[in-house]
């Protein structure tokens, strides 16, 4: 009658791991702060200087608009050409990286490795390298943006390629389609909206990136940052900043609206 029911309850997992993680993170933060000699008092002491700078920036020199308008156009053109070239190159690269389409580890692992390598190089460094090769001007800037775009678009596209529905591919194979036809009718329709969206997104980023490439002499509006900062003409600098901000906001807005429509 009086059978003893033994209640079996699992033991709660130890929280030791969480505490340890928190301690390690705090140590890392503290160590980094010490090593870089960053302190809040420095920030506080610098505040008057910052206010001075802001005061000199205001009011912006509106008339400077005429001088920088062409450079801004050049910036957008650089981003446009760079993104387009990058998008074209990214298509075959993405195909090589997609394990479900390439099927050979001997091909897609090296392809991915190269892609990751490309993405670790900052665009400003790329621009500096290309300036050294091709000389000053927008051309090295465009090449830098192209390489950067390939890295980003190919990465996003191959990940999207790996999640596509295999069904249509199977169906196209059963219809008697050759490799190209399977790709055209089984893969592209599934991927084209994503691809267009990634290209637009990269274009947004490239406009922002192109705005500072001029710092290393790779064309565009960045050149004027360097000049005005060098001559301490902060009212002109603030004009450039405002103009850049407006353009970037407009392009971001249009691009994100388009991307909403696409997907």
């Amino acid at each position, binding site marked *: 009658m009086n059978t003893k029911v033994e209640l079996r309850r699992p033991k709660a997992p130890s929280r030791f791991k969480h505490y340890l993680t928190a301690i390690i993170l705090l140590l890392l933060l503290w160590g980094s702060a010490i090593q870089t000699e960053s302190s809040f008092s420095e920030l506080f002491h610098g505040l008057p200087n910052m206010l001075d700078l802001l005061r000199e920036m205001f009011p912006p020199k509106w008339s400077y608009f005429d001088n920088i308008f062409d450079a801004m156009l050049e910036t957008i053109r650089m981003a446009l050409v760079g993104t387009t070239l990058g998008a074209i190159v990214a298509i075959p690269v993405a195909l090589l990286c997609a394990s479900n389409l390439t099927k050979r580890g001997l091909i897609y692992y090296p392809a991915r490795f190269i892609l990751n390598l490309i993405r670790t190089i900052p665009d400003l460094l790329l621009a500096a390298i290309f300036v050294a090769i091709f000389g000053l001007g927008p051309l090295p800037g465009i090449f830098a943006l192209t390489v950067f775009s390939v890295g980003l678009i190919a990465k996003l596209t191959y990940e999207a390629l790996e999640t596509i529905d295999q069904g249509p591919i*199977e169906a*196209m194979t*059963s219809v008697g*389609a050759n490799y190209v036809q399977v790709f055209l009718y089984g893969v592209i329709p599934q991927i084209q909206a994503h691809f267009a969206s990634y290209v637009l997104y990269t274009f947004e980023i490239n406009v922002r990136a192109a705005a500072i490439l001029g710092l290393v002499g790779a064309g565009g509006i960045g050149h004027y940052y360097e000049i005005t900062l060098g001559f301490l003409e902060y009212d002109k600098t603030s004009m450039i900043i405002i103009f850049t901000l407006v353009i970037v906001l407009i392009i971001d807005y249009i691009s994100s609206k388009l991307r909403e429509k696409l997907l």
Partner: protein
Amino acid sequence: MIEINNVSKTYPGGTKGLNGINLSVAKGEFVVIVGLSGAGKSTLLRSINRLHDITEGDIVISGSSITKATGHQLRKIRRDIGMIFQSFNLVKRTTVLRNVLAGRVGYHSTLRTILGQFPKEDIELAFQALDRVNIVEKAYTRADQLSGGQQQRVAIARVLAQEAKIILADEPVASLDPLTTKQVMDDLKRINQELGITTIVNLHFIDLARQYATRIIGLRAGEVVFDGPVEQATDDVFAEIYGRPIQQDELLEEAAV
């Protein structure tokens, strides 16, 4: 029309998918293959158009061996074999018409298909195919806006546009409700009778198999355990195929109630 000679398939792990299958299907037959999940129905069907490779034996389609065919020759044999899938396998982001026209690409050069310009006759053929499955008004609708039954009818239209001489249907109604199941099976039967297209269907509903088939093939553990006209496929035969008495959920009518 289809000769399957001593076909076996061993998977890399050593599991036998198919074991010494010998079958011969004549033109115009409506064959239903039944068997439990994992009995090798799908593998057998996909061996016929070589979506799966076999490890032993030979499969001959209208006189030419698909097992030995490569490249262009293989694609040409495949062009004559339409396939219908459980999950429809349409491109969902494209229109119904484009999906049906995709069945035509085997007839055209790569260059022509890159441009995507199909000849007028192809488009007419696609419309006729859609007409035959009563879905022509949806031609310009995107495939993902259709119900499951409608999508499967589009898939049938694709096979018709392909002008296939053989239709392989792998569990074509497994993801459909009983009413749509009947419509899709009726379409397949009508096409089989009117156009004389040899049809092989995998099913797991016993009463459906009895209702539509002219011949039933039972598979168990990769081997043919029954092959005969539908009249001979009694309850005992099915119990033999399934290795146990028939259960209620293997009957569509019962499952529907």
